[in-house]
């Protein structure tokens, strides 16, 4: 299983802070997004925006990054701390 977290504006827009997806061979961030898009729910298109940041196990990665079973993914808007 893959645990997926959403933060800030993205969490509010998606109406969820966390979900799980079954892992599959050769899964990448992009293929995971594509998988979510097949759920016939337009809201997941928000994840396609260029500005959305993706982290795997707390490390920021690109859309082509490989996902391993048990990984924790996070999607979030550009950060605004400090």
């Amino acid at each position, binding site marked *: 299983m893959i645990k997926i*977290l959403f*933060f*800030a*504006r993205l969490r509010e827009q998606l109406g969820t802070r966390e979900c799980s997806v079954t892992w599959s061979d050769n899964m990448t961030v992009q293929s995971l997004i594509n998988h979510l898009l097949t759920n016939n729910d337009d809201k997941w298109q928000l994840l396609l925006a260029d*500005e959305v940041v993706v*982290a795997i196990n*707390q490390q*920021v990665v690109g859309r082509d990054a490989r996902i391993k079973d048990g990984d*924790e993914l*996070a999607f*979030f*808007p*550009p*950060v*605004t*701390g*400090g």
Partner: protein
Amino acid sequence: MDINNASKLSPLVSVVIQSSTFDVPAETRLLEKALADNRINMGALATFTGSVRGSETGAFDDAAAYGELLALDIEHYPAMTQLTIEAIALKAAQRWPFLACRVIHRVGRLAVGEPIVLVLVASSHRKEAFAVCEFILDYLKTAAPFWKKAIFEQGEQWVAAKVSDTEALDKWSLPSL
């Protein structure tokens, strides 16, 4: 083993994420005690405190319609924030010799005027203390997973990321983390 690296002392790095406020003199004394306990003499200490401004009008399209800014709600990604700030401090240590740093970042609802972030940097000389303090803040603002939501009298709005914060990294000639 590289003798030059082995002879370099790693700085004392401490990062705390908390909802409660912080006391700058008390934190400064803690840093001084940590250095004294490790028999390290410092020559310079840079202190930066960031607070909730009374207005965020520049950051919003129609801020006037929301009335006065009351507070900021700060959300974060707990598993990642502390690790990211520690990584930034270690990156600074590769560039400047400094002795210690303590970073405190608050989360939750912070009223106008309340402190948000504290960065203390101790070094032998002022140049390193100022540089490391600014470097940590510049990278914290663009890499550490915190998000601010502005709470107005009428309504609320997420604070948008500033291009100027990303441009601030240019002076360090390093890619974003």
